[in-house]
């Protein structure tokens, strides 16, 4: 398949790994931001190909993982109302809230529907004018434009029974928060290729300059990731710190301007809570006043219940790249994809699930 096979080619991948081994003279700690990249690294065993000097730590770029517990609890509470149809992306259904998850809510009678895009939620709203349709709109800069478009369309049509429970997060403020912590070990970033496809990478240049840290905007296939690592190691070995773009087949400097326009039209930047990381200033997208009537938080009287994570779950440290999933005492014992304690064990893009699904045999052998 074009644009896939050449980026999964074993010979090219091994050649790149060989080159990394030649170039690296010092130990380096690199973080891939995106959960999709973590998934590829684990699925293809990219860490196995790398010299021991290169350590990969996994970033917080899994939208399912960082959606606050309160948002999940609110979604479950909304879904359980008789007058509500809750529409969600598939992998939100198993994410544990404080006491339940959406799959269990569905089994006990809640009307929960899975959609591939927010426009499907609009269709559900048009087809069910007597009921309230709430779309659980989560994600990074990648999914936000489509969600903004759904709100824009709903406003244009004058839909009265459609709203969104929004938990949108932005990558650059999270990188800033990670780099600003005293425990930070990260020396180079593989930047989020799909986020930058939408947002461009100007903001990453500011971060790279400010913290003197190399960044390479990377793709999601094995060859993309190995090439990104090679570019980072070259910079580090040469004492450079700039932003380079490995994912040129998708990312441009300025990004997708129409997508950015619709984002600005519907949302404004505000503070946002991340599951595992806490509140980060300016890291979220919230409805502008003109779109307030599509904000489920305002449409419904949702009481905020203070929720707590299970004590033994170390997902906060995993999401910051400070610990590996296998460092967790509950990993694979008290916490599995069937009975997850933390969100990183749920989504295919969560670091814990990626380790569990693809690499647990390395622990046994």
């Amino acid at each position, binding site marked *: 398949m074009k644009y896939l096979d050449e980026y999964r080619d074993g010979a090219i991948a091994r050649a790149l790994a060989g080159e990394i081994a030649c170039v690296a003279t010092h130990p380096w700690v690199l973080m891939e931001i995106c959960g999709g990249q973590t998934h590829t690294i684990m699925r293809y065993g990219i860490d196995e*190909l790398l010299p021991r000097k290169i350590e990969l730590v996994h970033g917080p770029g899994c939208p399912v993982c960082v959606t606050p517990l309160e948002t999940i609890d609110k979604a479950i509470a909304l879904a359980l109302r008789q007058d509500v149809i809750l529409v969600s992306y598939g992998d939100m259904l198993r994410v544990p809230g404080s006491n339940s998850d959406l799959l269990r809510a569905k089994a006990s009678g809640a009307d929960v529907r899975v959609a591939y895009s927010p426009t499907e939620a609009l269709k559900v709203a048009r087809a069910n004018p007597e009921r309230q349709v709430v779309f659980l709109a989560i994600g990074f800069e990648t999914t936000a434009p489509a969600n903004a478009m759904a709100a824009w369309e709903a406003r244009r049509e004058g839909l009265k029974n459609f709203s969104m429970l929004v938990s949108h997060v932005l990558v650059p403020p999270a990188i800033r928060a990670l780099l600003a912590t005293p425990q930070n070990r990260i020396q180079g970033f593989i930047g989020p290729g799909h986020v930058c496809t939408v947002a461009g990478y100007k903001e990453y240049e500011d971060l790279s300059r400010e913290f003197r840290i190399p960044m390479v905007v990377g793709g999601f296939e094995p060859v993309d990731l190995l090439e990104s690592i090679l570019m980072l190691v070259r910079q580090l070995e040469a004492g450079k710190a700039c932003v380079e773009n490995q994912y040129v087949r998708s990312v441009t400097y300025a990004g997708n301007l129409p997508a950015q326009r619709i984002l600005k039209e519907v949302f404004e930047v505000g503070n946002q809570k991340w599951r595992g990381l806490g509140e980060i200033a300016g890291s979220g997208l919230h409805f502008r006043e003109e779109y307030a009537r599509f904000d489920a938080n305002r449409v419904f009287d949702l009481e905020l219940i203070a929720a707590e994570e299970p004590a033994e779950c170390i997902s906060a440290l995993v999401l910051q790249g400070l610990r590996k999933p296998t460092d967790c005492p509950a990993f694979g014992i008290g916490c599995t994809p069937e009975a997850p304690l933390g969100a990183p064990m749920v989504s295919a893009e969560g670091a814990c699930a990626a380790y569990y699904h693809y690499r647990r045999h390395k622990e046994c052998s």
Partner: protein
Amino acid sequence: MSLQSIADLACPAPLGASETVLLGHGSGGKLSADVMRGVFLPALGNPLLACLNDQAIVSIGEVKIALSTDSFVIHPLFFRGGDIGSLAVHGTVNDLAVGGAQPLFLSAAFLIEEGFPIDSLRRVVASMRRAADIAGVTVITGDTKVVERGKGDGLFINTTGIGLVPSDVELSAHRARPGDVILLNGSIGEHGIAILAQREGLEFESEIESDSAPLNGLCAAMLEASTDIRCMRDLTRGGLSSALNEIATQAHVGIDLRESAIPVREEVRGACEMLGLDPLYVANEGKLIAIVAPDAAEDVLRAMRNHLYGAQAAIIGRVTDSLAGMVTMRTPLGTSRIVDMLAGDQLPRIC
């Protein structure tokens, strides 16, 4: 099977802390296994049931009989490459065939929702008849129940089948040995993607058809080619991964696959990439795997390739003596990863 090993299987494992039945309990993955071990085996357990095979094989006097039952719940009822009627025949025929049986007779039970069009029912039953004729089986008894409108989803069908197992045929996962070869009869994922595409209204450049097919002829040809077939499984819900994980667990062996050897059609690969699904977990209705002694592999492979439903057959991996109970896969990069059993249904991912 010894009493102790049955007791082990019947351990009342907690149902993943769920107090109610979730859709995932019917997915053929880990949750299905949980409900089997946590609910059905403790109550109904006996040595035959505890084998947990798709069919039970029981001797009555000198005759070995295979018995299998399956219920069919599918939306849409008519899809590219088949319908619920042909599927209900193929599903049970295949469950018998992979047990080494020659399928003979079927029963068919229809659970129909009030208001269901008689014309659609006629089409489904005509399709069952065609499928049964082609597979060489006869529907000899049946049952019809109608439920009130809103208490069903159009039409559900259950079929039960019996077949005869030749006295010299004994297929069982427990016979798998390190060094054995794993054969697959063709490309995977077509049924699941065809259904999903039609259900979700997804349009692809070329239409993907379900692979729904009767595999009894293929199984007979394979068994004729060699007596060293250890076991066979048809790949349905849960896909290739579930079938292999079940064998690895039952036989206490490791299974190591080569990713590049597993045939997947370009259209299916493309659809899976788009939807964030892994073809290893996508449903099939006309595919099987066979575990075969290394010396017999070439003969069985040749017999498969000479058959209509095995033209694309391939050796996809081996049984190993390391990592018992686990399925691993060699990636095109030369690294190794686990092929895990899914907890429940595969969920499409966000981005």
